[in-house]
């Protein structure tokens, strides 16, 4: 079948007049990397991969073993609809291998494949549907506060029309690329938008999230608008999250569903949730990987702060949406801390690993926290045994560093590189003297 798939890709390139094929892969930080090849090189690339210098890619090789092979995954070949049809371009995601053809352990896509295989060995398929939030701004000027489109001044036309036509075009493009959209809407903060993707298996979804970020940015840029997934671009406004709706399936059956349970949650679902809650602090550095991420995880903006779960309480870390009666397939949990700057391959990996740990060790689910946690005192919270998510990147990194779960899920290579890289990021942040400090201390002290 692999030969047929390759043949299919080659014929499509020929028939559709594709001039350039972009080989896509993702570095450890979740940045999309791309290099272009001509159709003439494609056949070779599909069979043997393309050599590229890994030392220039964040989190890839150490210098002495710097070359790696990018091998296109023919399942992911798509013509890019926003490029001029006369000079069509296509993209294909790659798996990264060592020169001896063994899978490269620094490849995030490989990490996710490995974690999905482990869950599959226990009979589970991991399905994910993300709700992705982002902002549209005027092209950023260094040192200035981002300027939302909605506030006028930037465009002469009614700006809501521009934003909604951008969003419509984005959705049309996503759908053409085989990324179905469930809902989309304007969010609470000025210029903030949300697009909810329809669930797929986790590997396809990680690829889709990478594509999504490119499509949103490309389409905005074509209209001289800057789209950003930065978790908290505006102080005092809601930040951008990437809530993940998740379920496990065993064949045709939703393993999270149990008709006899009052919440319709199966044992598997409860153990999975318990695993996620117990290991939530350990995986937060991955799901929320920037200094700025932690400015979103504060009370008052519908972002989770506490490690808790509930059905209809949006202040908790896990929400269990109540599906329509009898819709077993829609039973799912929503993990609310991740933000859209995360590396989706790594985030899905550690989330799955935490949930699967809960299943294999049969963790028991803590009591539901249905009160509004934002209004409770710390003393009341600790009485309920409810801890907080890490408060900063630094704190998240030190919890992650002691986690064998995260180390196993990511593999040594990425685990060590990520910690090293992010500690440098934290140091860079910590050594800054901020306007906050100058305002507060310069005159009074």
């Amino acid at each position, binding site marked *: 079948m692999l030969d*047929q798939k390759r043949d299919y890709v080659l*014929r499509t390139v020929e028939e559709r007049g594709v001039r350039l094929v972009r080989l896509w892969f993702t570095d450890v930080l979740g940045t999309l990397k791309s290099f272009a090849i001509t159709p003439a090189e494609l056949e070779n690339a599909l069979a043997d991969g393309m050599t590229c210098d890994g030392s220039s890619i964040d989190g890839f090789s150490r210098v002495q073993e710097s070359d790696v092979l990018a091998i296109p995954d*023919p399942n992911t070949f*798509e013509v890019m609809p926003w490029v001029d049809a006369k000079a069509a371009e296509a993209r294909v995601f790659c798996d990264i291998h060592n020169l001896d053809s063994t899978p490269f352990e620094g490849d995030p896509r490989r990490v996710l494949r490995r974690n999905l295989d482990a869950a599959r060995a226990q009979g589970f*398929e991991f*399905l994910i549907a993300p709700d992705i939030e982002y902002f549209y701004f005027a092209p950023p000027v260094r040192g200035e506060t981002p300027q939302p489109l909605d506030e006028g001044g930037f465009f002469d036309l009614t700006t809501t029309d521009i934003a909604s036509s951008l969003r419509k075009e984005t959705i049309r493009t996503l*759908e053409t690329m085989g990324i179905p959209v469930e809902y989309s809407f304007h969010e609470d903060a000025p210029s903030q938008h949300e697009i909810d993707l329809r669930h797929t298996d986790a590997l396809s979804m990680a690829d889709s999230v990478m594509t999504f970020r490119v499509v949103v940015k490309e389409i905005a840029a074509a209209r001289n608008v800057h789209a950003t997934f930065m978790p908290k671009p505006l102080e005092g406004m809601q930040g951008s999250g990437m809530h993940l709706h998740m379920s496990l399936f065993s064949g045709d059956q939703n393993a999270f569903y149990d008709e006899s349970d009052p919440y319709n949650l199966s044992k598997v679902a409860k153990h999975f949730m318990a695993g996620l809650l117990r290991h939530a602090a350990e995986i937060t550095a991955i799901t929320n990987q920037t200094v700025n991420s932690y400015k979103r995880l504060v009370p008052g903006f519908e972002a989770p702060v506490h490690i808790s779960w509930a059905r209809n309480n949006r202040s908790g870390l896990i929400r269990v949406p109540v599906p329509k009666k009898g819709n077993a397939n829609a039973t799912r949990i929503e993990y609310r801390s991740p933000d859209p700057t995360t590396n989706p391959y790594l985030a899905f990996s550690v989330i799955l690993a935490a949930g699967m740990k809960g299943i294999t060790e049969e963790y028991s689910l803590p009591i539901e926290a249905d009160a509004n946690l934002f209004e409770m005192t710390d003393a009341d919270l600790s009485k309920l045994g409810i801890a907080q998510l890490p408060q900063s990147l630094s704190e998240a990194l030190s919890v992650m560093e002691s986690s064998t779960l995260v180390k196993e899920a990511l593999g040594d290579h990425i685990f060590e590189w990520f910690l090293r890289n992010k500690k440098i990021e934290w140091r860079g942040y910590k050594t800054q003297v901020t306007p906050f400090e100058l305002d507060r201390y310069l005159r009074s002290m």
Partner: protein
Amino acid sequence: MLVVFPDPPTADLARTLDLAGYKWKAVNSITEASSSEPTAGWSGAIIACDEDPEAGWAFVRALRKRDTPVAAVIVLVNGAQLADLELRDELFDDFILSPFHPREMEARLRHLFWSTVGTTRAEMIETSGLVLNLETYQASFEGKPLDLTYMEYELLKFLAQNPGKVFTRETLLSRVWGYEYYGGARTVDVHIRRLRAKLGEEHANLIQTVRSVGYSFGQVRRGA
């Protein structure tokens, strides 16, 4: 593409053809039928011989006399005109009594055009505006190229080869994915949703969901 006589056809006929997903063109003369004929030729003809029998039958006869005959011809007659059919067997492939029931029309169209519209040439599948070139793997919908991944293409091909037939997810998995699949039956749902997204919102119902059974391409054939 079906040729329909006369132009305009009755509203019932036009609606039935549209709902069943056939592409068609109404004409008022044999000259017009020849000048507007697509390069692949007409796949079939529907001729109303009930309102104006003389004009209708003249059109049928002219159609049959052409160098490139039309594969399947359906005539519409009313109950009082059944005698008109006698000694004209060679002119038509089937007839429908008017006023017709849409279901009957659909069923007859499907049986007649199954072999002609569905598989015009062995390496092409043409149905409901969809064209799949099995040799070049290219798909187009209403004349525009449709960019599909390999599995989307294989799934659409399998469904379109069997229009109106309902397949369970398990059948689709084993027939389309073969043994090299994982992800279980939900994989089928995901791919169906992707195909619908690519076909566009207004044509998403080309692939029908048959509740608690599976999927079919186009309207479900009764008794299938």
